């Protein structure tokens, strides 16, 4: 019996040595240690032996089994190591080839910009409100200190709606700016107020740099001690968050009917790096960005707020404009609204 054991051990160890794959190794395991394996069969024969001998052979057989198992597991590790060592070569792929396609869509460039704007203003407590797009002349102009026939109205090439004229509110127009929210919001809410109104606005213009419908942001803040410093701080916080802390900002005195004082806000041109040299984009190194000012007392009064008790600021700018200024240069603004997927998916 002992001889048989020796023989089994020898042939098992040499078989293990020869094996080259995990599957072959498993076969060897079955061949020797499996239910019908050589060693198992031999061990089954033990029961025919008597006491002492059975114990001695049994012990020897266990040694052999352990030895075979140790050899199997050593071989298994060796094979595994060899396989891991080889995968760099055998399982190499071209990582520069394109990834598997995974169809996703895209949020429109303008919406992405709006979402960024909303987030920045939300972080300093401005909530987004909505206002009508088809609007009364009253809220679009008159209540904003622009009586009928006022030349300032020329700046807005306005679309008119041929529907019911109101005795109180005048004609209906497609709102040419988001400022129509100002008096509405004052009528609907108590002060203090910190809001942004972002929406579609309409002007009669259509060429490579103008579209008849575009988007504007109106910021409006009313409180008992709102100052020019607050206006400046708010606008600056936004511009620096949106364009980066290193951009330069300039404030120029300007004239708007619904604010007094008023100013325009420029940012340094990143096309010519602010030099203005032969630059087609900017004016002497600056790009016009927004209009702003302290809300005119007439506007506060129109909204039922006492201008001696409260003050307010407002600012406005175009969404498309600041999207373009953030480095997306689109040769023709009309492309924004043609909804060609080859355009939409770029952003």
């Amino acid at each position: 019996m002992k001889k048989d054991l020796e023989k089994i051990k020898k042939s098992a160890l040499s078989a293990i040595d020869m094996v080259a794959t995990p599957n072959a190794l498993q076969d060897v395991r079955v061949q020797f240690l499996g239910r019908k394996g050589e060693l198992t069969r031999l061990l089954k024969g033990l029961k025919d032996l008597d006491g002492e001998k059975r114990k001695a052979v049994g012990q020897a057989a266990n040694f052999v089994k352990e030895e075979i198992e140790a050899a199997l597991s050593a071989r298994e590790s060796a094979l595994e190591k060899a396989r891991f060592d080889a995968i760099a070569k055998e399982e190499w792929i071209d990582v520069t080839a394109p990834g598997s396609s995974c169809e996703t869509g895209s949020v429109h460039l303008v919406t992405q910009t709006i979402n960024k704007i909303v987030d920045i203003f939300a972080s300093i407590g401005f909530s987004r409100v909505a206002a009508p797009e088809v609007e009364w002349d009253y809220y679009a102009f008159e209540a904003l200190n622009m009586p009928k026939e006022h030349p300032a109205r020329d700046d807005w090439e306005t679309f008119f709606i041929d529907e019911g004229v109101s005795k109180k509110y005048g004609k209906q127009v497609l709102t040419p700016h988001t400022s129509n929210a100002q008096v509405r919001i004052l009528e609907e809410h108590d002060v203090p107020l910190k809001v942004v109104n972002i929406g579609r606005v309409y002007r009669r213009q259509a060429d490579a740099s103008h579209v008849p419908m575009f988007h504007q942001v109106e910021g409006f803040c009313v409180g008992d001690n709102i100052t020019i410093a607050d206006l400046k701080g708010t606008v600056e916080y936004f511009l620096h968050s949106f364009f980066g802390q290193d951009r330069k900002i300039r404030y120029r005195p300007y004239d708007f009917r619904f604010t007094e004082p008023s100013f325009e806000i420029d940012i340094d041109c990143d096309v010519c790096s602010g030099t203005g040299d032969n630059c087609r984009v900017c004016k002497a190194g600056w790009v016009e960005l927004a209009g702003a000012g302290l809300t005119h007392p007439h506007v506060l009064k129109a909204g039922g707020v006492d201008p001696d008790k409260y003050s307010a600021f407002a600012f406005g700018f175009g969404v498309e404009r600041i999207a373009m200024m953030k480095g997306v240069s689109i040769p023709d603004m009309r492309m924004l609204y043609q909804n060609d997927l080859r355009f939409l998916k770029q952003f």
Partner: protein
Amino acid sequence: MEMYVSYSWLKELTKTKKSAKDVADLLSLHGATVEHVVVWGEKFEDMVVGEIVEINPHPNANKLKLVVTDIGKKKVQIVCGGANVAIGMKVVVALPGASVVWHGEGDPVVLEETKIRGEESHGMICGASEIFLEKLISHAEKDIADLSHVDAKAGTPLAQALGLDDTVFEIEVTSNRVDVMSMEGVAREVMAIEGKTYDLKKTKAIKAGKEKLKVSVKDAKLCPRYQAVKMDGIEIGPSPDWMQSALFKAGVKSINNIVDVSNYVMLEMGQPLHAFDAAKVDEIVVRNAKESEKLEALDDNTYELDPAMLVIADSQKPIALAGVMGGAPTGISDSTTSVVWEAANFEKYTVRKGARSILLFSESQMRFEKGLSVFSTQRALERAVELTMELAGGEVVSEVVDTYKGTYKPLVYDFDTNDARLFGFEVDVPEAKKYLERLGFEVSGTLKWKIRVPYWRDGDIEDSRDFVEEIVRMYGYHNIEGTIPMGVSEAQADPLFGLRKNLEQYLVGKGFSEMINYSFVGADDLTRAGETVHNAVHVLNPLSVEGEYMRTSLIPSALLSVARNTSHTNSARLFEIANVYHKQEGLPKEELRLVCAIWNAKSKTPLFYDLKGVFGDLLDGYTSVQHEMLHPGRSAEVEGVGIIGEVHPHVLKQFGIEGSVAVCEFSMEGLAANLKARDAFQAIPEFPGVKRDIAFFVDKKVLYKDLENAISGAHDLIAGVELFDIYEGKGVPDSKKSMAFHIEYQDPEKTLSMEEAEAAHKALEKSLKKLGAEVRN
């Protein structure tokens, strides 16, 4: 309003020591925006005055000549095609290195030494338009600019010879600041910014003559003041170089000494003037135009006037449109020897409306329509008379007519410096007072001020609030430290914006791209999609018929966008979230909606399910519906939310779309109310369940919804129902469909035994049989 301001002229008025660039920057920060700074000297680099000494024919070209030109240091040969070249003529020579605009068209190009038809040309003899001088020098199209009258030797740099060695600011003046539409106004701003005060130019009182002038104003409201004076012995001729170059730099063409004086004084003081040929004007009547009267204006066009317009007329006919433009027949010509100077004030809205109704615009009209002071006419008239005598000779022979009978009462406002809450910075009261005084305001009082407004700000200061602006801009917005207003807003964000943002992200993950369409469409697009224009809001002045109606549905423009993509791809997923507009009493009803469209050029399975699947189990309650633009067999309604379905093939044909399109149009409010709340916790099963499949034939018309209800309700242990196959056709009896479901049986309390599951499955088979299903094994 744009205005060109010469730095050297400004320097003369202000005595500033600052560079052109510094002055431009300061003006932008405190006063009017300088949009562009044009350095004229740079434009004329490598250009000199040349004198022609010899002209020879070009051997290879009939129309060209070889012109030997003295350019100071040497004489060079230049090939030139100018028809008027002559020996002794002084010309503009652009040397190699200079930038010129070929024939006045396109971008400037840099000249090089070259051969033209085999002959050497050392530079170019220029026409005015080739070197930006068409407004200064006029000549026939085929000629070159003749500088013979210029007092400069050959070789003199051109900029120096023409007095153009200067920098010009292009200034944008806001419409409330007509006082800055003059050199004196800009000078006042610059000096105030520098901490100094500009003193108005002194003018000499006019020594009136004896002759009476017949002047009458019919409506003093429309013409509050009319001043006129007659001068005889005038000699018409060109203006001196200094005036020509001053006008040129301001963008005004030089005509003759009298016309130039009127423009020069307007540029200098901001008050427009007009000169009539006195021999052609018997009297002056300021009145409204009569029906169908005409005016042949100085721009050589004849305009038909209407009674809303204010004119200057003689005894017969209009001779000028008040404040806008004079008439050609009474204008200054070479034969004029006697002029009537007009310095008047016209009501701004009348000037504005008149100019706009016949689309006639001028430097004069631009100023009048912004509102000039009644009190600026006197100085301007004195200045004009003074300059006329200096440049054209002559003397005043008439009285100085003045129709203004009122006395000047300056505007006075109170301003409380304690009430400085708007500034947001500590205001230095004495300093602030100086700011205003330098701008011409008279301020009295220490803390509570009385402020007298100078006449040139009459039309602009409306309220004591306006002084806040004057003080802040002089202090400088850039010097204010920004703060962020604290406190919580009473207005909360509109919750639909939150839903909107979530939907955007969700749909993008499902492969949809967001489109933004115009809010308006054409009547055609509405009707093609089965909508009617009846409820649609109509735009009175659309840019085109494609933008005549506000959208009543988002689907037509979604189909237009799909159609625009069919040429380059085979499928598309698009969505938009925007308002639709429906007529009602008062303003239209604006409703925020979501539209989604899935297009596939060759879809084999109904796209309806692709689109419905996008919303998964977020929505339920789909019922069949008939809708004009939708496929009659493949469309559904979600109550209170909107419609979903495949677009009717007939509609697709109208839009030129091949294949099929599934769309849904949902109300955002409806979606917000109907999206299933996901805030209830459901226990995670603790014990393993049993999965079984069941397959059966059932009548085609039996709705899935009814089957699902029957299956779910067949036994308490049924915890999950999932359709995994639906099939009609070969092997399935006609009028039947084959359906197969995964069913999950589960007991929340214990591990389910096979026997229990089997019993439940039997119960399920029984329920299905009740619906006429034939269970297959």
